[in-house]
């Protein structure tokens, strides 16, 4: 077991983990942060995407020990304390950018990183920027629209 200290969604944790524990398993199983999900085992689908120290990361590709000392934000930490949704959460809802919702946390977390790098992306830039996140329900069109809407809202 290895001791790690990190902040997740604004709360500090100090935990013992097996060195082989993936960050996503630590989040889900030890912290109960089940909003972040696992969709594949080859880092293709992006369902497990979270933010680690300001960058979106597929939390199935990172060991929990690698996040030691870091600050992690998951889908559960996006809304404001008073419940006000993040612009992307709001836009995903208003644009009908989710159906089953399984890819949604990862998609929103990736889109958030995309908009931080490029606040006003073109449709092509959004599509290429989200290439690492798979959705089987929506055909992506409304996801693109949601990201454009959120980008507009933040300008």
């Amino acid at each position: 077991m290895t001791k790690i200290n990190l902040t997740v969604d604004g709360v500090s944790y100090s935990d013992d983990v097996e060195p082989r524990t993936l960050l996503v398993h630590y989040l889900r199983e030890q912290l109960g942060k089940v909003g972040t999900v696992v969709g594949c085992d080859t880092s293709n689908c992006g369902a497990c995407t979270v933010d680690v120290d300001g960058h979106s990361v597929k939390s199935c590709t990172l060991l929990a020990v690698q996040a030691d000392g870091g600050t992690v934000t998951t889908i559960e930490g996006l809304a404001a304390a008073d419940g006000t949704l993040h612009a992307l959460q709001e836009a995903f809802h208003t644009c009908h950018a989710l159906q089953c919702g399984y890819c949604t946390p990862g998609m929103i977390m990736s889109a958030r990183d995309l908009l931080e790098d490029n606040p006003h992306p073109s449709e092509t830039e959004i599509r290429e920027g989200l290439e690492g996140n798979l959705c089987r329900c929506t055909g992506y069109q409304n996801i693109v629209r949601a990201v454009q809407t959120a980008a507009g809202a933040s300008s």
Partner: protein
Amino acid sequence: MTAVADAPAQEIGRSRTRKEDQHLITGRTTWTDNIQIAGMLHLAILRSPMAHARIVSIDTTEAAARPGVIAVLTGADVADIQGTVPCAWPVTPDMVNPGHPSLAVTQVNHVGEAVAVVAARSKAEAQDALEAIDVDYEQLDPVLDMEAAVADGATLVHPNTTSNKSFTWAFESGAAGTGAPIEAALADAEVTVHRRFIQQRLIPAFMEPRSTVVEPIGDGVTIHSATQIPHIMRLMMALTLGIPEHKVRVIAPDVGGGFGGKIPVTPEEIITTMVARKLGRPCKFTESRSESIMSAHHGRDQIQDITITAKRDGTVTGLDVHLYADMGAYLRLVTPGVPVLGAFMFNAIYKFPAYRFVCDGVFTTKTPTDAYRGAGRPEATFAIERIMDELAVELGMDPMELRRKNWIKHEEFPFTTVCGLTYDSGNYEAATDKALALIGWDDLRAEQAKRRADNDPVQLGLGISTFTEMCGLAPSRVLGSLSYGAGGWEHAAIRMLPSGKVEVITGASAHGQGHETAFSQIVADRLGVAFEDIEIMHGDTAISHKGLDTYGSRSLAVGGMAIVRAADKVIEKARKIAAHLLEANEDDLEFSGGQFGVKGAPGSTIGIGDIALATFAAHNLPDGVEPSLDSDATYDPENFSFPHGTHLCAVDVDTETGMVTIRKYVCVDDVGTPINPLIVEGQVHGGLAQGIAQALFEEAIYDDNGNLTTGTFIDYTLPSAADLPSFVTDRTETPATSNPLGVKGVGEAGTIASTPAVVNAVIDALRPLGVKDVRMPCTPERVWRAIQEAQA
């Protein structure tokens, strides 16, 4: 007096954003894998690395001694109790079903088949112990090619059968009395076109891997599972494992997509239930994606031999279809029924006088097949829409003109087809005209001519798919005539609460469709209550005690209608109470906007919420009226519904690299009356993505030893956002006449329609180069090779 919101004038037809979204966008979800129960064990399943082998021995001694391991079970340990994975659709009386053990006992018949299960205190410990199980296999020859599989002397997949053919299902319009004899059409044909099309094997690839948590409670069991079919599973689990039905509760919590992939009762669900009951401990099994890809069922996989006959003027005179349909190694819930559902769709929107359909269901040593979005209908639609293009070329006719000449005209509805189905409504002309205008067809044709003349290395292709489908599964009598093991009705119940709020229970089981929103809109209009005051409850057999679940685009056309019937029963009872309270005659009451009023006496009204409260109080009810304002209704549709539409696709094909790029995709769908246009559009988008994926991207590939080589998302290439264009979607609205809502269903339309539109476009681009077909998926390599072969 009751604090309920005002109902708006009309909910049906509004693009309401979804009620379902809030918990999904904030991560407060209830996926099955999220469930933790005190004392819960975690399961890991050892899977066969062989396509076809006898199990000589299994040694679990070392695995059982591993840290944290509570039990290791093999097929032999549960052979007496595991029953057989159920198949509910014996399509012919003599269909061969060799049986499907959840855990292999004597033999494995596909890579990924479950061989042993470990129960341990943690998932990691269970997984670690798998490597300590020693299985001795005696390898057998794999059976991979369907035609070879049914040839004399072929290796048998199952030792308890005499052939790899499970069934032959046949229909012929002359014999059935629904049309002319096919032999005469073939003999008298002025023009005959034959093609062989290959429906490649696909993987449903729902984003949430399958997961099951089973909790044994007393002599009963609660099964939480990522399934489309909690009600069917309850019955099937009872029958399979011999647990009394009333002791089984099935809960489908948030379910992350299905697309047919979560229709069957699976070996993994049965294994988890068996182990939990045997050990008396809650157990969880969650598959990895790699496990899912090789053990959750696949879709499609047919060899289609299609012959179409016509007169020189373009009048089609007959269609002759022979299919080999790959069942894979076993029959799951509706495996044999999938190609049979397609049998009624090969004639599509056309008035063909003669038709024959023969399907051989074949066993191979591959993962079992079963329903995948469209289930039989995409295959049929692809074949007919592709061969209509080939016939047009043969006749020197414009492909749209050929379609117009043969399709059922708007004024000819209702129309009984050569299969004996009655299409209640449709307007192919309107949808087609709108689609042609939206895409700018004539301009694209002009550009195509120019690029052909210029020998542009990037050629433009235009593809058409004028499709229909049968959905809203289904009239129970029809399902009975097709030997399906259940009916096609749906159930709903409504409970008016004292505060005027409304609980609606549906037997449909959503997994992304937006039922809570669409059904609330229906109830809001029917009962005159506010959208927000309605709660839709589903997916738990303790709450929704009966139902037939969600597949085949049935939830709205059948489940929505059951809700309408339940609402009408509430109104009927409320009317008696209203008459009593208003001291009026029932016949003098009118109900509108949630209020009962006395005709001709304005001001004398009572709202349905107040009636609910008065019923709850029960202080002043009419004699003989029970103090409840609830209802229960079951709706059995009188007919299928028949969505249709025209899909047009323009592709750029780089003849030097084989790269296909969709330049524009336009579809005009007619799904009848839309309850929520926003949701309809979303369903169309997602359907298109999956249909286009079949045309261009996806294929499950086995090597010569029967190994699935596309075993991860690295190799099985789901399209990403970067692979797809934005679609232009529009609608015509020709209400279904078979149900009062006028709805038809939209879950599968996009997938059914889009595949041939794209492939027809690819072929159209390459036709001047001599290319007549490209096997799906039309990858750059396949397209490039097709060009090289045509030019050679």
